[in-house]
Structures are given as C-alpha cells and as structure tokens.
C-alpha cells in the first residue's frame, strides 16, 4: 500500500482514502493512519510512523550508558519511572551491582504509582475518544494527586529521571508515605463512582463489547503484551512471569478478561489500578530502613563485554532493553523493545472491516503512546 493518498485513490477509485493524522484528536500524538474506506467501513489500514522519531537508540551508542537514563523517560512519557526501572536494572545486571532493599521498595512504590497515573490518563483519554467529555476531568483530578506526590521526591511531574544505577536520587520521607496512603484511600473511594458513571453505561458497553476482538494466537503472532493480551485470558505479566525487583514478595492478582475485545482490556486496565494500589500498600507496610544507593557504583561504569537483557512490565506491556557491550562504558548497541510498537502492528488486522467509530475505539484500547513507538 503506497503512502500517497492521491495515487492510492486513483489506484482503487471505488474506495475512499481518509488520512487520519498526524494531527487528529484521537491518534494521541503524531501517529498517521491511512484508512481505506468503503462507506464508513475501514477495509484497509496503514499506520505511518516516523513523525516523532528522535533516534534514542542511536543516541545511546554515543554516550556513557549511565547518562542515557533521562532518554528512557522520554520514550514513554506516561511510564517514565518504569522505563527508568528497566534501564537501571539492565545496567545493574551488567555491572553486577547489588541494590539495597530500601531502593527496591522505593522503586516498586513509585513505579506502581506511575502505572496508576498512566492508566488514569488512558481512562480519561479513551472515554474522550468515545465521546464522553467529563470522565477525563475526574481521572485527571485523581492523577494530579499522583503527580504531586511524585513531584516531591523526583523533582519532575512527567518525564522522571529518578532512578540511578544502584539506587534512587532522593530518599522518600514521611510526607511521601502519608501522601501515598491518603491517595490510596482516595482512589479506592473513587472507584465506585467510575463504575457507576462509566463502566456500567449502556452506550459504553455497546461501543466496546465485541469490538476489536483478539485471540491469544493473534497476540502471539504480533507480540502483543500487556492489558490487551491479558484481556484475551492469558495471565502474562512480567511482574509474575519473570519476577524482577521484589515483586515476588507481594500478593497481587493479574486481572484477565475472556473475550479479548475492547471491553476486556478496558476492564483489565481498570482492575489493574486496584492491584497496583495493593502492591503499594504492601510495600509501604514493609518499607525497610537503609541506604538509597549501592555501596560501590564506579563513576565510570564499565560494562563487561557481552549481551544483557532486562524486561519489566510497562503500563502498555512488556518492555525490554537489550544491550550489547564491547567492554567500554558506552554501549555498542542498545535495543529497546517497546510494547506499543508491537501492539500497534496488529491494527491493520484488528480493524479490518470495522466502522470508523470502532477503529477509534480499537485504537484507544491499544493505549498508544506515540513517542514510545517512534523512539
């Protein structure tokens, strides 16, 4: 399929090519999708990428691995801490650094807060895609509390660079702990309202049920992970599948759906917020005292030659860093496997023959963060 709209229309003149994006309210950034329409039915879709490409992976090959940390936050601005987490873990694994236990707890707490923040934003934005204007204000109201809490310890509100190789940059204090506990209570009290206002709404259910159905097999073919995969009934979550950090210590469930449609992934994400709250609660209860930095982290972090991999569960699915080192402090090659990229690739198959409105629902269900696709 050519990318030229005119040529495409001349080629198949009975069809109508709609150019959705790069500036379009429901592509959430600079994604461009070419839709070949018959009436309102999308017969063919082509995502066009590259509008937000910043060469993050190439940049990694030109500077010391330690100083790549801020770049990770810019890939997925909604899951910045989780991206930090994966990268810090990668370098610790490569350089053989032992991380103090308190650091692991702080990382888990802040990462889970970050995950809830990401899901809250998705919740509002998705409903905005579906034409409900109000819920985004409610979810942003809640999200604002997380941003305030994280701002106090990390110093920024969106693109955090809080984790360091071997530790975190600043210790959490009593204010953080009480603020987080208050937030947990608040968000729990808000869930029933969300259920009443949104999740039980008949229009919403009609818009989401049976739309964009995926099967575990399709997910496997495209490498789809995260809530979309869990929506099909496969309880695959990196926090459980290959427990990293200290996730194996906590008691939490992996919410799954059955049908794999938009409603399934919608509910999976909604319930994940509650599970993240549970993890945070347990981590706050068990928060040990101690140092926030590993004892011996060399200034110039030489990575022994070899291949290293680190995977974490990002809000949108499995995030992997793969690093090839030639023994210097600058990586020879860093490959980032971001979840949205694989998730997006299913769009042409998932949306074939769908109505235009359903394409918007399906794309919203992928919870795309475009800078993560175009790194």
């Amino acid at each position, binding site marked *: 399929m050519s990318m030229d709209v005119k040529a495409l229309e001349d080629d198949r003149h009975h069809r109508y090519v*709609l*150019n959705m994006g790069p500036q379009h309210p429901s592509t959430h950034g600079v994604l461009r999708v070419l839709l070949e329409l018959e009436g*309102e039915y999308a017969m063919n879709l082509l995502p066009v990428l590259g509008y937000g490409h910043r060469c993050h992976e190439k940049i990694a090959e030109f500077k010391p691995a330690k100083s790549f940390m801020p770049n990770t936050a810019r890939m997925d601005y909604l899951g910045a801490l989780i991206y930090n987490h994966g990268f810090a873990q990668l370098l610790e694994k490569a350089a053989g650094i032992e991380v103090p236990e308190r650091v692991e707890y702080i990382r888990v707490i802040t990462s889970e807060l970050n995950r809830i923040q990401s899901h809250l934003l998705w919740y509002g934005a998705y409903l905005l895609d*579906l034409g409900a204007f109000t819920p985004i*204000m409610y979810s942003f109201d809640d999200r604002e509390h997380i941003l305030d809490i994280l701002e106090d310890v990390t110093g920024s509100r969106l693109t955090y660079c809080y984790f360091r190789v071997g530790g975190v940059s600043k210790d959490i204090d009593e204010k953080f702990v009480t603020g987080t506990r208050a937030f947990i209570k608040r968000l729990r009290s808000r869930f029933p309202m969300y259920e009443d206002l949104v999740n039980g709404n008949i*229009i919403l259910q*009609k818009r989401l049920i049976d739309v964009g159905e995926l099967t575990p097999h399709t997910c496997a073919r495209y490498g789809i992970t995260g809530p979309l995969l869990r929506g099909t009934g496969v309880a695959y979550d990196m926090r459980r599948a290959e427990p990293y950090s200290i996730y194996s210590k906590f008691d939490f469930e992996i919410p799954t759906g059955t049908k794999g449609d938009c409603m399934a992934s919608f509910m999976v994400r909604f319930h994940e917020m509650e599970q993240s709250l549970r993890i945070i609660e347990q981590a706050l209860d068990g928060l040990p005292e101690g140092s926030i930095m590993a004892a011996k982290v060399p200034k110039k972090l030489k990575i022994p030659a070899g291949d290293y991999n680190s995977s974490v569960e990002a809000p949108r699915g499995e995030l992997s860093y793969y690093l090839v080192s030639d023994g210097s402090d600058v990586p020879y090659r860093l490959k980032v496997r971001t979840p949205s990229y694989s998730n997006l690739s299913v769009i042409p198959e998932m949306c074939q023959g769908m109505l235009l409105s359903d394409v918007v629902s399906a794309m919203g269900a992928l919870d795309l963060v475009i800078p993560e696709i175009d790194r």
Partner: protein
Amino acid sequence: METFYSILPELIRIVICAVCGAVIVFGNALVMGYAERKLAGHIMLRPGPMEVGPHGIYQLVIDGLKLMGKQLVVPAKADPLLFRFAPLLAFAPVFVPLLVLPFSEKIQGFDLDIGLLVILALASINLLAILIGGWASNNKYSLFGVFRAVSQNVAYEIPMLLSLLAVVFMTNSFSLKAVVAAQSPVWFIVIQPLAFLIYLVSIVAETNRAPFDLPEAESELTAGFHTEYSGMSFSLFVLAEYANMFIVSSVATVFFLGGSSGIPLPYFEYSGIIWFMLKVYSLMFFLVWIRWTYPRTRFDQLMNFCWKYLIPFALVNLLITVVMVKLL
C-alpha cells in the same frame, strides 16, 4: 392608500415580531452559550469561564467579538459560493418558527392553523444547510459528517413527527394555541408519556447533540461538517444549533408540558411566559446535562435504534391514540 392603511397594523406587527424573534435568537444564544459552558464546567468539577466579568458573564460577548474579527477562510478547492451561503441558510430560517410559538395566551406572533407544519418545515432547512456546507467544504471529514447528518436527521424526523402526530390527533388541530388550550386539565405528558419520550430522544438526534452528535463527532471526524468553517460562519452554525434547541424544546413544551399554563403568579398578567421559559430551559438543561454525561453512540447503533425501536413504538402509540380517540 386605503389598502395600505388597512394592512399597516399587520405590517407593524410583522416588524415587531421579527425584532422579537431576533432578540430571542441572540439572547438565547448568549444565555445558552454561557449556561452550557458553566454547566459543563460544574459537571466536570471546574469553574467554567471565570475571567471576563464576575463569574465570566461577559465571556460570550468577548467570544462573539473575537469570532467577528476572525478571517473567514475559504479552502482552496471549496465551492466559494455555496461555502459562504451554507451558514446563512442554517441561520436564516430559525427566526420564523419563533413567530408561531405561543409564549403565553397573549404573546404569540401569529396563530396559524398550520403552526406545527411551519415549524417542522423550517426546522428541516437546517439539514440542507449542513449538507451544502459540508459538501462545499471539499473536506473528507466534512463529507462524512454530512453523510451522517443527512441519514440521521431524515431517520429521526419520522419518530419525531409520529410522536407529535399522536397529540395532533387528540387535539384535532395543527394550531399551537389550540394544542395548549387542549391541555387545560392534564398535560399531554401524562396521557402520552411514550410519545414524549420518543420526542425527547428524537430531538437530541435532530439537534445533533451528544450522545447523538455523530455529524460533528470530534474524536472521529475532527469537527465533522463544520471542520473548515471559521469565525462568524462557524458561529452562525452554533447560533442556529442553539436556536434549534430552543425551538424543539418549545415544541416539546407546547405539545407535552402544557405550554404556558402554570400557577398564575401574583401581580403579573403575563405569568404564562415565565412558565413557558421555565419549561423550555429545563428541557434545554436536560439536553446539556446528557451531553456532558454520556459517551457517543456508534452510527449503526443510532440508526438501528431509530428504525427498530423508535419508529415501531411511535407507530403503535399513534395507532392506540387513534383508536382511543375514535372510541371515546
């Protein structure tokens, strides 16, 4: 000369009515524009416009000035004549239905025997304007908006008409004054609750408002049929939308909520108009309320709802009404 003097009072009457109509249209747009933004704000837990004047009451005036100052951009490949003509066509006919509305027993422009037909006929012109505007824009999103607008409006006009027809059969008249007079003991909402519900659903679709705002579904079609419109030509569409909301709410008031009837207020001869406006604005509040609460429906669901549920129910309702009228 003789004839001139004989028709002079009527001419003056026409001028006065037209001026009053214009005042209502613009006044309603100001009130509703402000009220909608304020209500939307409070529904969303934010204050709404606050900057211009106390509680932002001059916001709409400033917005109007801004819109008047903006350039009217005509897209390169658009049809310039039709493109400019469409907003006028949307806006011009909204004055006429106001002339036949009985605001109270004494305040009514003209009590035509075909009052309802005048309103419905002129209300449909809005659709033509949308069609012309969307087509002339030469924009694919506009065109999609138009496809949806036409099929949606044509479909929903049928249950709307059928539900009103049930009342017309009961009153035996198209005159709005007669319809109000027929509701002196009980309002028709009590006798015809199903017709009222059907009408209420239909007007949401007729005025293209959420959850049935598919012609301008901004998450799918950016701004739908008015994507390419800017400045005053855009605001004429908005003015027409608010005027149409007022008209359909007025028709609902007249046909189901007893028009201007209500408890007479002390020391005020024209208390009817207060009741009338109260009922109209309550209905409009309802329209605003659901707009800011529900997600948007999908197009096929919207059409199915009309053809599979509303029209059959409206027909059954009409049939029952006719039989009952014949029997009683």
